[in-house]
């Protein structure tokens, strides 16, 4: 049974994963935290917490609210910053079999370029995932990823600053997701991941105040799966680079749906909180399905629902 997938066919040497199951940024830390609980080396790839040039403190509490089949978060990208990542985390990853992809975020195009530059060539890093759901301070705070032009600018800047394969991660908070996908593919994205969290909020009726310290946040978990699936389906039909599906995946069945919609790989996010073994359970679920259906190569079912 062949589960391996190539996520950067246009790149040399590419980004080959032993299997299509990755972890989603911000839900698996730096990978080390889960190594006591299961064999993380069995995963296809690990995507680490979103990383910025300088360490960030994040938003005021409360930062998490559980909703119906979902989770609202307003973490605000708290992270250790790229230098600490290079000093403390990358050397550990260098000894791992599983590839680690660094998720990067910035407020200006130059931030992304500099991050890409600083991470280029570091041992232990196999690729970059560009989070374009961040507010663009220069353009008055709208997310880079909400329209094609700024999204393409970030992508091109990162591409020019690194020799690593790059995945661009799209936000669902736009009416133009296919246009954004086409623009970033054109600008040099080796692969496209989607979706990031869906904007949302919750209100405490007793205090009559928003429940999140930041008032609004991003929704994740099973609640967003149908949204993510439809977007993956549309984007995979439009672009000629591999697509990575993400949003509410908790089981092998969920992952197979994304693969059939056109995803070459999947990312498991919020599901890891409830069940730290979730990424491995997803992988085993995919294997079981392939065995049962006598599928010899995962490629046979990628995009099956579009044919």
């Amino acid at each position: 049974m062949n589960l391996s997938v190539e996520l950067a066919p246009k790149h040399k040497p590419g980004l080959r994963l032993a299997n299509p199951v990755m972890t989603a940024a911000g839900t698996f830390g730096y990978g080390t935290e889960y190594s006591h609980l299961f064999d993380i080396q069995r995963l296809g790839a690990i995507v680490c917490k979103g990383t910025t040039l300088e360490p960030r403190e994040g938003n005021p509490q409360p930062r998490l609210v559980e909703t119906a089949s979902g989770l609202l978060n307003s973490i605000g990208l708290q992270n250790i910053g790229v230098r600490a990542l290079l000093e403390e985390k990358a050397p550990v990853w260098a000894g791992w079999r599983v590839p680690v992809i660094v998720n990067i975020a910035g407020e200006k195009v130059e931030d992304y370029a500099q991050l890409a530059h600083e991470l280029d060539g570091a041992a232990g890093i196999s690729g970059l995932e560009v989070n374009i759901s961040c507010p663009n301070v220069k353009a008055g705070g709208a997310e880079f990823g909400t329209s094609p032009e700024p999204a393409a600018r970030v992508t091109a800047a990162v591409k020019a600053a690194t020799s690593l394969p790059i995945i661009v991660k799209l936000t669902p908070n736009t009416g133009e997701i296919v246009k954004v996908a086409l623009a970033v593919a054109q600008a040099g994205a080796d692969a496209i991941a989607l979706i990031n969290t869906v904007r949302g909020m919750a209100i405490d009726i007793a205090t009559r105040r928003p429940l999140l310290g930041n008032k609004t946040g991003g929704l994740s978990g099973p609640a967003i799966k149908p949204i993510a699936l439809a977007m993956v389906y549309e984007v995979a039909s439009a672009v000629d680079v591999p697509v990575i599906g993400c949003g509410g995946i908790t089981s092998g069945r969920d992952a197979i749906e994304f693969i059939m919609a056109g995803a070459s790989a999947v990312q498991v996010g919020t599901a890891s909180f409830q069940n730290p073994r979730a990424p491995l359970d997803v992988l085993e679920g995919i294997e079981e399905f392939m065995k049962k259906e006598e599928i010899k190569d995962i490629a046979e079912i990628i995009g099956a629902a579009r044919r």
Partner: protein
Amino acid sequence: MKQVAAEVISVEQILPGLKRPAARSIAGSWLIRLSCPEIAREARPGQFVMVRCGGELTLPRPFSIHQISGDGIALFFAVWEDGRGTNWLRQKKTGEAVEIFGPLGNGFSIQPSSKNLLLVAGGTGVAPLRFLGQEALGKGCSVTLLLGAATAAQLYPERLLPSLIKLVTATVDGTAGRKGMVTELMPDFAAQADQVFACGPMPMYRDMAAQKRKLRLIGKPVQISLEMRMGCGLGVCYGCTVKTRNGLKQVCKDGPVFELDDILWEELPKS
């Protein structure tokens, strides 16, 4: 740290419900015993476990380890009337499995030189302190537990505590022990204590932090167990971050136990 499917040994209601007009009502308090040798072996007082309360919920629920006995751990938990996780957990039956992972967090630390320990529990806050009291007695310490509740029926039963713990109670309505808040008992006991350990609601900690002189806590090492909304419990999601005098800390990993003085109380949400 392990993730296991723990078999339920027993589930028992310990305290009745409590209607609270101005706050969230409680359906009662339960004690669940779970068989999980891998976790029981490692656990230290003040640590907690994450419990997966059924497949429908997105997040696991954190509960302090209340007691260790042989291969088992016990959790003592208040069930919120509208709480989805706690209502699920109280309905578990003997022999069923509950998925948990832990032990998590740093736990309390008893200084080797400490002989007299003062434990201060506000309501359900007795949960981690029972385990601590047991451990301290085993080390030869003398342990006093100040236990506070809204009313007599809400006091954690003395029969469930190790008999060597000296118990002093307070109730808000005066139906048992001294009338008032549990913190009002502190001036009479804090002076003799080498260390103070507290667990209770946020207002109790705010009181303690604001009235250190009155409560005789000046210069006293005070450890508290902090409750914060949690996602992962493992230090990965940054959902539980608090500001301390020593920078940002993750309650699940760097806590839940902190020095009272380390927390910047004014930075935290009110409840």
